[in-house]
């Protein structure tokens, strides 16, 4: 390349160039950058330092970070600084810099290339604002969730006391024989008693539900067989009463919160017994492994339901039956859904009226490379 061409390329390159000494004094600057800043060469060369074109904040960054990096590693890339030109000129830029040791005994000089990024900077600012907003929203949501959880817990907890008082009082009245058998009062009192029972059940389930989100001690290896057995211990009375048979094969170990798996099986088993058919309940578990997931099946020979109602039965406080026909709150299966989803799996059901239902849920296989 001819010298004139080289000079032309330096002076009129589509980016700014300057050369400074270690004290920041500018010894060379190209025409492009001079035009951007609206300065004459004679006003800058040997008269101004690089930092003179920076705001105070950028100056601090330059002295505490940029220069140290440049001197330690010999170059520095993609530093975002805003250059201040004559008057109101402000140019957002990206700076790359390189240290050049011209002569062994001499102080090094620094070559700086300057890329104007006015438009990109606007996007960046928008991004920053959006990011801040998202962070704030996340923070607020977390706080709100905490408040809600606390509210759900205390509300359901505190509701228990007056309710116990009501059913206690009804019980006393019954004992005192003030209610005549077959009278209208007896009907009213029995309604009070059964509604109080329903409400107790709802509160108990709500409490359980609100506990799913509680800070648990974290995930551990859980034997699903152990979880099943614990659930069956809790349900022992119902199992006996209904002469239910439960077939459980060897199930895998998974990562999760043990007590939540116990709740999951407890709800699934008690549903299978509660929504039984005329035959004695038979519950059969099975499982398969596909890719990174185990699928666990819980099959019953109960009354079943129309497949179209699948989404409804997992809804919070939604039920297919009235409380009078089969007692329930509509919380159990939505709690199951939440537990499974908290463990990264999903839950579903295949059902036919009068032929029984098969509930299934997925849970990821333990990653052996992470857990020994």
């Amino acid at each position, binding site marked *: 390349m001819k010298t004139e061409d080289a000079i032309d390329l330096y002076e009129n390159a589509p980016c700014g160039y300057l050369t400074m000494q270690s004290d920041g004094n500018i010894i060379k600057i190209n025409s492009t950058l001079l035009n951007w800043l609206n300065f004459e060469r004679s006003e800058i060369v040997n008269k101004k330092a690089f930092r003179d074109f920076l705001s105070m904040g950028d100056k601090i960054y330059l002295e505490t970070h940029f220069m*140290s990096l440049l001197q*330690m590693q010999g170059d520095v890339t993609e530093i*975002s600084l805003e250059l201040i030109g004559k008057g109101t000129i402000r140019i957002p830029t990206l700076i790359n810099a390189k240290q050049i040791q011209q002569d062994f005994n001499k102080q090094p000089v620094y070559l700086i290339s300057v890329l104007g990024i006015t438009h990109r900077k606007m996007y960046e600012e928008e991004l920053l604002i959006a990011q801040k907003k998202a962070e704030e929203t996340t923070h607020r949501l977390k706080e709100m969730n905490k408040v809600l959880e606390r509210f759900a817990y205390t509300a359901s907890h505190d509701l228990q006391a007056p309710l116990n008082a009501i059913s206690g009082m009804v019980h006393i009245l019954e004992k005192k024989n003030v209610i005549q058998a077959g009278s209208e009062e007896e009907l009213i009192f029995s309604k009070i008693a059964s509604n109080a029972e329903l409400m107790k059940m709802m509160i108990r389930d709500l409490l359980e539900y609100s506990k799913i989100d509680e800070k648990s001690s974290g995930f551990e290896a859980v034997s699903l067989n152990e979880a099943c057995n614990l659930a069956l211990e809790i349900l022992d009375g119902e199992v006996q009463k209904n002469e239910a048979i439960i077939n459980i094969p060897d199930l895998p170990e998974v990562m999760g919160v043990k007590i939540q798996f116990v709740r999951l099986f407890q709800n699934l088993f008690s549903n299978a017994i509660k929504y039984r058919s005329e035959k004695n309940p038979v519950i059969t578990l099975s499982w398969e492994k596909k890719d990174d997931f185990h699928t666990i099946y819980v099959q019953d020979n109960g009354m079943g339901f129309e497949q179209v109602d699948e989404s409804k039965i997992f809804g919070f406080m939604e039920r297919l039956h009235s409380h009078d026909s089969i007692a329930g709150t509509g919380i159990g299966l939505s709690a199951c859904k939440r537990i499974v989803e908290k463990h990264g799996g999903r839950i579903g059901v295949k059902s036919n009226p009068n032929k029984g239902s098969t509930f299934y849920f997925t849970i990821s296989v333990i990653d052996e490379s992470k857990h020994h």
Partner: protein
Amino acid sequence: MEKDIISRNYINRLGNGNEPMMFSHGYGCDQNMWRFITPAFEKDYDIILFDHVGSGNSDEQAYNVEKYNDLNGYADDIIEICEVLKLEKVTYVGHSVSSIIGILAAAKRPELFKKLILIGPSPCYINNDEYYGGFSKMDIDELIETLESNYLGWSSSITPVIAGTPGKPEFSEELHNSFCRMNPKIAKHFARVTFLGDNREDLSKVTVPALIIQSHPDIIAPVEVGKFVYKEMPKSSYTQLESPGHCPHLTEPEQTIRAMKSYLKKLKI
């Protein structure tokens, strides 16, 4: 305990001497910034290098916003390092904000220190009535903005390096500005703590002899500020270097070493 502190502050020890010399880096950097200075002291000293919690390769998990809400949190770390490594009569070399951290540590536990070498100290960066610190509160807000725009790509592109993938060439590009890296949230908080603090009243509490190395011109810690520190500290000496910028140990390492050595020799006699 010892292991915890060593990894928390990424402590490195070198040198063949017995006398401990601790190097404490300034804001925006890490222990790498001492690379031109330490070779001159390796023969005679037991050199202790470390990163402040939140800087360099320190354990980011140990960054506790409350603890590090003023410089005393960092001073307590210095004392802890001395205790865990069983150091006494330490020659403490601090740059910039670490000068003040050293002053706080020496005021609390003078017996741990033999002398302090303070490069570019400033007890207060903000102008305050008669006092000239060089900056206004607004300047520091501007700095926070600069930090924000320079850490824009942090989360996506720099994280693999933080996670540690040694020997993988595809990350060499990101490794480029790998010295002095800092989590943006910590960088902003540390900036506020560093530049908005006022430790002028702590200067007179130090009984350990100290050398102030002042570079000229230095816009971060101007000559006026260095002289103020010299005036306020009872047993202090003052050396001004003809070295521009805030990091004479990088810009003019020979001059800096000479100033340190002549002070250390003078004090021995």
